[in-house]
């Protein structure tokens, strides 16, 4: 639009001041992107949870094991299309700091349950054939530089071996990826049969079951039916949707969303002060120029618009840079720090919110100077000059 040159030139009246303000905006939105990404990780994958998958855990707590005999009984329940299981292995790779999820599973039924995991057919067949084989997610392979054929030793902290050792060694047969960028693939999967055979205790038990609800069946009803099956037994169950499960787990860490909001609140409060100060200085310096615009025939409203546009422009410049860099960093972190904080992701919702905040902050920072510019009396302004 034709006023752009005027707005742009005015924004850069004092180059250092504008640059520093843009840099302040840049830092604020970089923080916004990073904290949003971290906050997203703490949602625990709620967004990628499949609405048709239910998780069955021991009612007392996730730590307690469930009998393997439950599998058939769950499978034959009305509304259950398929069922599989997994167990928390809880080991570490080389150093206790390198902890990531490892699950013993039944390969075919697990991958059937999680169709979002993609793996080349050849690799998958090799995995199924190899008792001591394992597959890892792409993020994990990236973080540790693993390639198919590598031997991966995992130190068990819970599951000591029947032969007395604590080291479980696997051959890496394949690497899988997720077609949803929000989902985490920081995961190692190996054969349940091997686990059952080689573990020292708790044989015949698994950590949890995952079931898929038949099309058209009500997940809530199916969950109730499953729990009813095992009521009053030694191992009562608690069945919930994948989303509810993820959420209740993550909530244990505390109200992370609140913490992130509070920190960002402090950051943006400061940002508004800085930009507000810049805008009010900028307007104060050119009262006579604004008066002249009015003498030329610019309406009061258009002068308001010119000042507000300047404020928004500064926010957009810094904000886009900050958001962009934040996005780049999160992409890198997701790939290389999979063990540290899996699931870090800059969601489209966060990006949209960032844009709304750029505009909103631009308006808030500029509104008082803009109103002053709108209301200034031409005569008084010119007389003062």
């Amino acid at each position, binding site marked *: 639009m*034709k006023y752009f040159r*005027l707005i742009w030139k005015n924004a850069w009246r004092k180059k250092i001041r504008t640059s520093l303000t843009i840099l302040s905006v840049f830092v604020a939105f970089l923080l916004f992107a990073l904290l949003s990404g971290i906050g997203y990780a703490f949602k625990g994958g709620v967004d990628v949870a499949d609405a048709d998958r239910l998780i069955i855990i021991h009612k007392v707590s996730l730590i307690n094991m469930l009998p393997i005999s439950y599998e058939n009984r769950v499978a034959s329940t009305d509304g259950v299309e398929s069922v599989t299981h997994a167990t928390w292995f809880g080991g570490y790779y080389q150093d206790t700091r390198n902890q990531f999820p490892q699950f013993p599973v039944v390969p075919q039924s697990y991958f059937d349950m999680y169709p979002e995991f993609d793996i080349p057919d050849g690799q998958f067949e090799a995995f199924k054939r190899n008792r001591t084989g394992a597959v890892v997610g792409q993020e994990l392979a990236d973080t540790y530089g693993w390639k198919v054929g590598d031997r991966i030793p995992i130190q068990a902290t819970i599951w000591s071996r029947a032969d007395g050792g604590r080291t479980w060694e696997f051959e890496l047969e394949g690497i899988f990826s997720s077609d949803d960028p929000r989902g985490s693939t920081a995961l190692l999967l190996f054969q349940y049969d091997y686990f059952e055979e080689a573990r020292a205790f708790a044989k015949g038990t698994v950590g949890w079951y995952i079931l898929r609800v038949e099309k058209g069946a009500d997940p809530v009803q199916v969950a109730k039916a499953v729990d009813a099956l095992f009521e009053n037994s030694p191992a009562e169950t608690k069945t919930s949707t994948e989303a509810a499960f993820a959420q209740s787990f993550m909530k244990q860490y505390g109200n992370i969303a609140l913490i992130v909001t509070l920190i960002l609140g402090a950051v943006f409060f400061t940002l508004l002060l800085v930009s507000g100060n810049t805008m009010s200085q900028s307007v104060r310096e050119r009262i*006579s120029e604004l008066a002249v615009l009015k*003498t*030329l*025939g*610019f309406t*009061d409203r258009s002068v308001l618009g010119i000042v507000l546009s300047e404020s928004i422009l500064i926010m957009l410049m810094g904000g886009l840079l900050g958001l962009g860099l934040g996005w780049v960093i999160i992409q890198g972190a997701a790939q290389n720090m999979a063990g540290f904080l899996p699931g870090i992701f800059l969601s489209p919702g966060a990006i949209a919110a960032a844009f709304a905040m750029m505009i909103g902050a631009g308006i808030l920072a500029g509104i008082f100077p803009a109103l002053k510019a709108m209301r200034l009396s031409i*005569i008084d302004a010119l007389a003062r*000059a």
Partner: protein
Amino acid sequence: MSNILARLEQVNRTYQKGKETVEVLHKLDLEIPEGDFVAIMGPSGSGKTTLLNLLGGLDKPTAGTVTVGGAELSSMSNSQLSNWRSNHVGFIFQFYNLLPVLTAHRNVELPLLLTSFSSKERAKRASIALDIVGLADRAKHYPRELSGGQEQRVAIARAIVSDPSLLLCDEPTGDLDRDTADEILRLLQVLNKDHGKTIVMVTHDAQAAEFAKRILHCDKGTLEAMEAA
């Protein structure tokens, strides 16, 4: 007798200054025919700037009417006045009041942003205006790179670029040396004689006033004619 371009009838302008009421203009009548070049002189506080503001639609009278080019300014709303100003009047100030962030050419183009002309058309008209004031070669310079006289000429180009019929000048030579001032005043005469612009010039400089066609004296809110130039 040519048409009357601007007319003030029984105009009063009073201000509230705290508890005091100050009457700047009192029952003032004024007729300015098309093509006129009138200088208004008087001591400070006499109301001559107020008079100019009323003619330009920057201010409204407390009583009486102000009519310019058939439009009754005293009854127009603020946005109507803005619109009217962009088409019908050009201002020239003592301190030029150019925008320091724009080049001379862009400064002259500024009033045209309010029109619907294309960017090419705007550029052309601005160049023509700069040509008229003799500063075509300075088009890309910023105000800080120009002398006082040059800045004033850019301001004049800006004042005429939307082809208004009325030019209002408030102490246009107040900040210039004698020679430069004469140049500016001669330029005003050219605009008046060759381009048909009606000019009202407020000044305290008697020598500047000589360049006009007639001189009026403003004192204590009323006008008196002095001998014609």
